[in-house]
């Protein structure tokens, strides 16, 4: 069956060049609503499971094509609408929140630093529960301290921080102005790492972690 797949929303600006094709080569269309624009395509649903990776990359390319030029509110890949009117309804109902977030995040991008421990053999083979708990507590303390050092070091360029705990690590999302990406990477790279800890950086990404809750989970037609 055909469904409408939303890619991202952005504020209408002169000179934003749009991608022609999206997921599965489908034409990318624009839905405009009082200064807010959303890109969408008709797609065959459900996706062929074997094509999901390709679709993810195609989806990513559409979002990043626009994101390279202006702030976007990215949709998740599996955000499907029954038809264009459902998507339009979402825009009409949530235009204020979407626009406010896009104005707030204009000129900003999200960078990420994930720090984590690779479990050592002796840690995995901790002989007692107490030993295991001690190792774990030490690990989290180190992660927390490292995370604080990163935040302090980035204070001059950081416009916001979000932290998510993950297994064996911490994801630090930092909002920075466009153009500060390299400074972010170099700053993180210049910090000493505690023994056994690893890190990696990525970005720039759309500032998805900094969206307001009403934009992350908007009202949709199905709730009417």
């Amino acid at each position: 069956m055909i469904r409408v797949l939303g890619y991202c929303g952005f504020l209408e600006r002169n000179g934003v060049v749009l991608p022609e094709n999206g997921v599965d080569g489908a034409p990318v269309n624009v839905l405009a609503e009082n200064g807010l624009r959303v890109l969408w395509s008709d797609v065959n649903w459900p996706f062929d499971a074997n094509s999901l990776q390709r679709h993810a990359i195609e989806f990513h390319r559409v979002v990043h094509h626009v994101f390279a030029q202006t702030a976007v509110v990215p949709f998740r890949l599996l955000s499907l609408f029954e038809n264009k009117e459902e998507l339009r309804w979402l825009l009409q109902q949530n235009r204020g929140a979407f626009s406010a977030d896009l104005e707030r995040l204009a000129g900003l991008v999200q960078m990420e630093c994930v720090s984590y421990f690779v479990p050592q053999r002796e840690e995995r083979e901790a002989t007692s529960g107490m030993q295991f708990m001690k190792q774990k507590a030490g690990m989290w303390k180190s992660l927390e301290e490292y995370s604080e050092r990163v935040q302090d070091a980035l204070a001059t360029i950081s416009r916001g921080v979000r932290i998510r705990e993950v297994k064996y690590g911490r994801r630090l999302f930092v909002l920075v102005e466009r153009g500060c990406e390299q400074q972010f990477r170099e700053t993180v790279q210049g910090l000493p790492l505690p023994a056994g800890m690893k890190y990696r950086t990525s970005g720039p990404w759309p500032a998805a972690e900094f969206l307001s809750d009403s934009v992350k989970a908007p009202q949709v037609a199905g709730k009417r």
Partner: protein
Amino acid sequence: MGRGLPTLLSPMPPELESSTINTTSEDDVSLLDILDHVLNAGVIVHGTLVISLAGVDLVYLGLNVVLTSVETAMRQLQVEEARSQR
């Protein structure tokens, strides 16, 4: 939606720890990062399942199929990348 999507990078599996991403070039972004971001970050439309329930359970079924596929894909990727690093 009632069920969350899996966090795909929690954190990057040790096998892929060398896959650092330090440029803005799309080519240098790993598939794992892309999957993580396109599935786990951004607007989530809770109505998707409601819409599907109003019709046939195909979307719901499709979602399950897709999620299974992602998890399988992740495992395959990890194995392949670990092999290539040996």
